[in-house]
C-alpha cells in the first residue's frame, strides 16, 4: 500500500504465500519444481505486493506493457493454435495479454510487424520458426525485448527458442517407411519456400530414402495447408507413372484429404498405397483408422516456452534453446511392420 517497489523482499512474498524462499525464486524464474497453481499464486502475490528482485529492476522498467505479441504464419493450422493455447494459461497467470498477427508465410510481413511491435515496447515477442528476414533479426538482437522463437530449433536463436528438429522428424519417418519396404515415395506439400519447417521435414525424408538409393518424388499444390490441398495433391500424385507406393504429406490435415482421394480413386489403403502425415493432429482421434504420423508435443511446447519466456521477462536467462521430443506413431494407413 503506497510502498515503493523494491522495498518488498523475497522473504515477505514467501511468508505471504506460505512457501519457502526457494519456491518463490523458482516460481518467478519460471523453472521446474513448483506446481503451476502455486506458481500462479506466487506470481500474483508478488505482483500485488510490488515485489521486484533488485537485479531485475532494469528489465522491468523497460517492459512498459503487459503485451506478448505473437506472429504466426496462418490461422488455418491447428498447430499454432495449440502451441498458443499451451502458452496462454502461463502467460495469463503472469498478468500478460497476448495479441496475434498472421504473416501468411511472408518474411516481409513478419518484418514489418516486428518494426511496429518494437515501437510498442511489448513485454516480449514470439515468432514462429527460426527463419526470419536478416534485417528483422538484427533489429530484434539490439531491441532488448525478450524474443521467443517457437516450433523449430536452431543453434543460433535470437534469444530463446523452443521447438522440434523438423529435419530429424522427417528423416525418422523416412527410415520407418523405407524399413517397411516402400520404394516409390512421394512428398505432398504446398508451394516451396512458404513453410520452411515442412521443407526441412521433406529434406529429412529424402535423405533417409537416399540411403536406400531411392529418390523422393514431390507433388506441390499452390494452396493453403488444408484438407483440400491434400486431396488435390494426392489426385495428381496418383496420376504419375509409376504410381507412388507411399505418400508423405505436409501434415495430418493434408494426409486426411489425401486418404479420402485414394479411397475415392478406388485404391485400398494400405493395401495399394501407404499414407503418412505429420503432427498427430486431433482429427486422428476420430478417423476410422489412425493415420501413420509423427506426434509433436504442441501443448507441452507452449507451456514450456511460456514458462521460459516469463522467466526471461523477469530478467532471468534460461537455457537458450530447447528441442522437444517427436514420437513416430505408426497407424493403420501404412503396411504393418512384419509384412515386408
Amino acid at each position, binding site marked *: *500500500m*503506497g*510502498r*515503493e*517497489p523494491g522495498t518488498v523482499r523475497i522473504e515477505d512474498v514467501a511468508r505471504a504465500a506460505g512457501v519457502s524462499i526457494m519456491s518463490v525464486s523458482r516460481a518467478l524464474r519460471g523453472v521446474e519444481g513448483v506446481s503451476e497453481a502455486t506458481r500462479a499464486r506466487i506470481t500474483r502475490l508478488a*505482483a500485488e505486493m*510490488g515485489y*521486484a528482485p533488485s537485479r531485475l529492476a532494469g528489465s*522491468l522498467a523497460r517492459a*512498459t*506493457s*503487459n*503485451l506478448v505479441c505473437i506472429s*504466426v504464419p*496462418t*490461422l*488455418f493450422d*491447428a498447430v*499454432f*493454435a*495449440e502451441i*498458443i*493455447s499451451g502458452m*496462454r494459461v502461463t502467460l495469463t497467470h503472469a*498478468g500478460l*495479454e*497476448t*495479441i*496475434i*498477427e*498472421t504473416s*501468411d508465410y511472408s518474411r516481409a510481413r513478419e518484418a*514489418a*510487424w516486428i518494426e*511496429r511491435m518494437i515501437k*510498442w515496447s511489448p513485454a516480449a515477442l514470439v515468432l514462429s520458426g527460426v527463419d526470419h528476414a536478416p534485417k528483422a533479426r538484427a533489429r530484434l538482437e539490439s531491441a532488448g525485448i525478450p524474443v521467443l522463437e517457437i516450433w523449430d530449433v536452431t543453434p543460433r536463436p535470437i534469444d530463446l527458442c523452443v521447438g522440434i528438429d523438423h529435419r530429424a522428424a522427417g528423416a525418422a519417418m523416412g527410415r520407418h517407411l523405407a524399413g517397411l519396404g516402400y520404394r516409390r515415395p512421394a512428398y505432398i506439400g504446398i508451394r516451396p519456400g512458404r513453410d520452411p519447417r515442412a521443407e526441412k521435414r521433406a529434406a529429412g525424408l529424402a535423405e533417409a530414402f537416399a540411403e536406400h538409393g531411392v529418390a523422393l518424388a514431390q507433388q506441390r499444390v499452390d494452396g493453403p495447408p*488444408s*484438407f*483440400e490441398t491434400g*486431396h488435390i495433391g494426392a489426385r495428381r500424385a496418383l496420376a504419375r507413372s509409376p504410381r507412388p507406393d507411399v505418400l508423405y504429406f505436409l501434415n495430418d490435415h493434408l494426409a*486426411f*484429404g489425401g486418404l*479420402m482421394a485414394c*479411397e*475415392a480413386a478406388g485404391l485400398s489403403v494400405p493395401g495399394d498405397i501407404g499414407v503418412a502425415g505429420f503432427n498427430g493432429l*486431433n*482429427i486422428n*482421434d*476420430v*478417423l*476410422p483408422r489412425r493415420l501413420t504420423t509423427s506426434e509433436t508435443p504442441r501443448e507441452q511446447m507452449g507451456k514450456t516456452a511460456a514458462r521460459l519466456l516469463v522467466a526471461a521477462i523477469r530478467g532471468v536467462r534460461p537455457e537458450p534453446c530447447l528441442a522437444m521430443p517427436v514420437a513416430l506413431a505408426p497407424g493403420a494407413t501404412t503396411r504393418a511392420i512384419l509384412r515386408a
Partner: protein
Amino acid sequence: MPGQQKPTMADVAQLAGVSPMTVSRALRPNTAVSAETRARIRAAADELGYVVDGTAAAFASRRSGFVAMTIPSINNANFADTARGLTEGLLDSGLQLLLGYTDYDLAEEERLVEAFLRRRPEAIVVTGGAHTARCRRLLANAGVPVVETWDQPAAPIDRVVGFSNAEAAARMARHLVERGHRRIAFIGGNGARDTRGADRQRGFLGALRDAGLASDRLVADLDPPISMHQGAAAMERLLARWPDTTAVMCVSDLSAFGAMTAALRRGLAVPERLAVAGFGAYDVAEIALPAITTIDVQAHRIGVEAARVILEALAGEAGDGGDADAVADRDTQVTVTARLLPRASTAGHAG
C-alpha cells in the same frame, strides 16, 4: 458512439476527486497509490469508459495504423476466413490487422479490448453481439469505428456485418423436415460461452416446434470450441438415449464430422439410417465421405465487408469532420446471406 466526445483523464480525475497525475499513476501497474484510491479511480474510469492510452503521451496526433479484431478461437477455419477477408480488404489502405482471441470468454474479450484501445486502433472488430457491460461501454466510447460481426445484435454498438444464427439454423431444420425426418436432434455447446451457438440451437428447435415436431432431442453441454472428438462423444450419448433418431444437426462442421464418424463406426449408414448436418462450410465437410450438408455463412465475405465498412467510416470522418453517424443505416448494418449447401449426408427421403 463514435461521434460522442471521448472521456479524458481530467474527467476521471474530477469524478474520483483526485488530481489527473494521481489518475495517471493509479491506472498503471507497480505505482505508489493506495489500494483504496486505486479502486476509486478504476471505478470512475470504468463508469466513464476511459482507457489508459499507452501511446497517447508520445503520439497524441499520430495514426496508429492498425485495426484490432477479437475472435473467439484461433483454431477455427471460419474465423480465420473472416480475418483473411479483413486483411485483404484492408491491404490497399496500409492498415495492419492485429488479432486477440477470447477463448469464448467475454471477460477475456473485455481485457483484450482494453489492451487494444490503449494502443489506439483505427477501428475495432469484435465477433458477436454479446459483451460484458463494461466492454460495451469501452467500445461505445472508443471514438473509432466498431464493427460487430457474425451476429445480428438487437442493440448494435455501432456497425454490424453479420447474419442471424437462429434463422440460419432454422433453415437447416426446415431442410431436414422437408426430407421427411420426424425424429430430429441437435448437438451443440454450452450456450453461456458460445452465444452464437446458443442462437443456432434456439432457431433450430423453434423451427422443429413450428413444424409440429418434438424438440427435446438435445445434447448441448459441450465446451466450446467444440472439437471433432467432442462431436463423436456427443453422438454416442445421443444414440444411447434416443436410438430411433433419424436426423441430427451439429452446431459446427467439425462436431458434425466427429458425430458422423461415430455413427459410421456403429454401423449406421449415413444418410440412409441417419442424416447428419453441420454448420460453417468447413473444408472437412466437403472432403468427408459422405460430404456433409452445411450452412455457408460466407465467413470470408464478412471480413471483406467489415473492411469496407471501416474504410468508409474512416473516409467519412476525414471528409465531413467526424460525423460518422450521418452514414445511412443500410451502409452500417450489413447482412450477409447464410446459404444452405445440401450434400450427400442428408440426401434421400426418410422413412
